């Protein structure tokens, strides 16, 4: 059996996750091939390193360290709150007032520039050409009444 054919399965052989038949095939090859045998022992050793690294003892001081971190976090959060109320709030209010003034000026200037002299001329012309501006509904009704009186 060629090394290349079974080489991809050596790590699965080392961790013991192959089928019985495949395992036997590789065992047969390993009895003949020195290179593959050495490599399998290296792979097995590497997997054992992982198993050794998994054995960790609990640190009795870990909880107190976490608690310390939490206290630091809460302190810094409180400091930020104080900072926010004492300094950031008035700054925000001032900025809001400035924004209001600025936007008011901007709106005012855009409104006046919207109607130019030409626009007002057109308005005057349309005013004169509009009959209803001169003759209100009341005058029409009055004139109609006078006409009726004359007829009578």
């Amino acid at each position, binding site marked *: 059996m060629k090394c290349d054919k079974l*080489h*991809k399965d*050596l*790590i*699965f052989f080392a*961790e013991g996750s192959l089928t019985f038949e495949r395992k036997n095939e590789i065992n047969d090859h390993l009895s003949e091939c020195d*290179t593959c045998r*050495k*490599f399998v022992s*290296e*792979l097995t*050793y*590497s*997997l054992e*390193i*992982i198993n050794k*690294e*998994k054995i*960790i003892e*609990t*640190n009795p001081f*870990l*909880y107190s*360290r*976490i608690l310390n*971190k*939490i206290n630091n*976090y809460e302190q810094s959060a409180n400091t930020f709150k104080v900072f926010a109320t004492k300094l950031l709030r008035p700054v925000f209010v001032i900025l809001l007032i400035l924004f209001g003034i600025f936007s008011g000026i901007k709106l005012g200037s855009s409104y006046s520039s919207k109607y130019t002299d030409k626009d007002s001329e057109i308005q005057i012309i349309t005013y004169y050409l509009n009959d209803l501006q001169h003759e209100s509904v009341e005058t029409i009704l009055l004139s109609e009444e006078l006409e009726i009186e004359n007829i009578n």
Partner: protein
Amino acid sequence: MTDREFVLEIRKGNQQAFRMFVEKYQLTVIKTCNGFIHNLEDAEDITQEVFLEVYKSIHNFREESKLSTWLYRIAVNKSLNHLRKYKLKKNLESIESLFMTNKNMINEIRDNSNLLPDDEIEQSEKAKILHQAIDSLSTNQRISFILNKYEDLSYKEIAEIMNTSLSAVESLIHRAKINLQKKLFNYYKKNYK
């Protein structure tokens, strides 16, 4: 205390419940972090950050997944962030390390471990090579491999943590093992033949 009770009690600010929660899950978190970092002291520091994050974000935990799944996600993200920061720091500190070859690193270990017994030096060298091989895997392959090998989690649990399908996890772990074998074989060819 069940996970649901842990969530409710920690939200209420029950310190005793938080202590029990830390005691229950600290080894799980340290082992996961150590799988990525390969340094116990740093893994413990990240574990502290993980539990701080739990304390800060427990009110935002929507309980759509298990508490342990959420905890694993935080541990994985914190570990990957630590590695990114460490990599950046290392690159800034020394340009020389960018050009450092595997052989140089092995020699460095040899120099640093003159006082250790021979078998410990050998184990340290081989552990370093294994760690390098694990670190060179793609992020998803690395996450799935570490959760499977260091935490003995099932493919289903890993799929939940990684928010992916079971078949995707099977494929990721299979490819991770093959890639790991290739990298270890390259090292073996160079040094032992």
